[in-house]
């Protein structure tokens, strides 16, 4: 008990530090962004897409180190270009999208590993890309995340009906005059950018959790689309707050703690929905 009280005391001390405040704000922004974009990502069956694009980030970071540039600035254009090319290949072939995504994922992973092995000396950047470090995010990252969140919110909220219709049935959306291709590519661009900014904080391996788990949890409880979208955002945001607090209290890595909170919320919701049905 006393240890918990000292822990809480420590947490308050911790929150005095600017890096901790930045981490908290960053986590909340990313949780919100993940919940917002995740809602459509899961419904459009793009969750594996963001996973594959995330792995392309490895290549970007390794290249960045090799070329002596800031690896994190290589990340953004790299995931973006990979995202657009991947969607283009899916559109242009008869292959199932999961085949294309596996090709892209394995290809970029293999390239990333080989490029990394060419890096002389310190390879700390690689672990940072795989696991992320939310405590290391700086003002630029925060502003970038905020900008992407704002653009995504405006884009999705102002074209909501078209977005839903396009997700339900692209043909019907096209007949009603929705610019289906423009919206699809815009969404994938935003998704790739969101993955890129979140990788620095939570890493390649866990970034997809932010997109998939909150929206999947929201879907379990929703009968209306409006409720689904709001819940997805709220769950994303709340898991970040709880996760950051818990990571401070128990002195654990922040990214994984947030993902564990998302996971527990999902398990709890799932059991609750199941039990209620019996």
């Amino acid at each position, binding site marked *: 008990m006393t240890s918990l009280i000292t822990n809480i005391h420590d947490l308050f001390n911790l929150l005095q530090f600017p890096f901790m405040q930045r981490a908290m704000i960053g986590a909340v922004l990313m949780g919100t962004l993940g919940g917002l974009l995740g809602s459509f990502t899961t*419904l459009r069956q793009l969750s594996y897409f963001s996973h594959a694009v995330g792995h392309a980030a490895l290549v970007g970071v390794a290249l960045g180190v090799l070329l002596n540039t800031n690896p994190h600035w290589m990340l953004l254009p790299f995931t973006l270009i990979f995202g657009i090319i991947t969607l283009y290949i899916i559109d242009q072939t008869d292959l199932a999208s999961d085949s294309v995504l596996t090709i892209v994922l394995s290809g970029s992973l293999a390239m990333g590993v080989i490029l990394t092995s060419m890096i002389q000396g310190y390879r700390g950047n690689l672990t940072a890309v795989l696991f992320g470090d939310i405590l290391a995010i700086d003002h630029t990252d925060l502003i970038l995340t905020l900008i992407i969140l704002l653009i995504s919110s405006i884009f999705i909220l102002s074209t909501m*009906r078209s977005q839903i219709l396009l*997700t*339900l049935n692209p043909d*019907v959306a096209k007949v*009603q005059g929705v610019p289906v291709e423009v919206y699809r590519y815009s969404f994938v661009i935003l998704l790739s950018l969101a993955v890129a900014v979140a990788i620095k904080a939570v890493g390649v391996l866990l970034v997809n959790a932010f997109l998939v788990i909150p929206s999947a949890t929201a*879907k379990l409880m929703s*009968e*209306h*689309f409006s409720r689904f979208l709001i819940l997805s955002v709220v769950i994303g945001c709340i898991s970040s707050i709880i996760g950051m607090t818990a990571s401070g209290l128990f002195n654990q890595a922040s990214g994984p703690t947030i993902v564990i909170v998302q996971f527990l919320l999902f398990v709890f919701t799932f059991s609750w929905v199941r039990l209620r049905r019996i």
Partner: protein
Amino acid sequence: MTQNPSRITLPILKVEGLTIYQGKYLAIRDVSFELFPGTDTAIVGPNGAGKSTLVKGMLDLIPHTAGKIEVFGFPLSRLGNLRQLLGYIPQNFIFDRSFPISTSELVGLGIGQYESVSGRNSSSVNSWLCKFRQIRRQQSTAIKVALQRTNAYHLRNKTIGTLSGGELKRVLLAYSLVTPRKLLILDEAFAGVDIQGAADFYALLNQLKLEEGWTVLQVSHDIDMVNRHCDRVLCLNQTLVCSGKPEIALSPQNLLATYGPGFSRYQHHH
């Protein structure tokens, strides 16, 4: 019922020499027809005759090799705001039944993104919020009316995943009549609905046609229903085999030409 030839009316839909290849396979060959306002036309034909392909080609959803399509007198690409007057319900509108959306939200999707239900209002900055509320109110009224017309108002708060097949069809019909249309294209929208349900649908379509001047084009498998309710039939088997009033187009000789010798009208099961 049928068009008076002496009256000059512009066709709602005009298809001229439409030819569609799917890969190397010739799916539709040189199809031409016109639809006039206030008519209900059915496309019939055997499986694989290209009925859905024809509809998709007309709507520019798949590319065509040759031909010209005009809707309301314009090519589809130049339709602009008139697209709102065009309704389309494909065979598999909802393929993800787990989609978290309620019936009334789905019907609301039928209203375009920026359109208000009762036409465009001039916008003024001062009363923007007021107008926004007014539009919201008009839209929810339109959704309510549409659901009531198709006898589905009691389903308004249900998720689409919990609806039965027939209920879903009624909701989709409500979707297509939530705003006024001029041309409604239904691709086997009534397949899987029981006889009473189908009769209700046709009665409603008939009402829309007579009272509001809608033009309906439907792909159908149900020859008897088509015979009873449609003004005109297009028999399709890769190309237009015959067209005309149901009693003529659906004569035994024409059915034989469309469906081939294996078809017997009174033993047609689904």
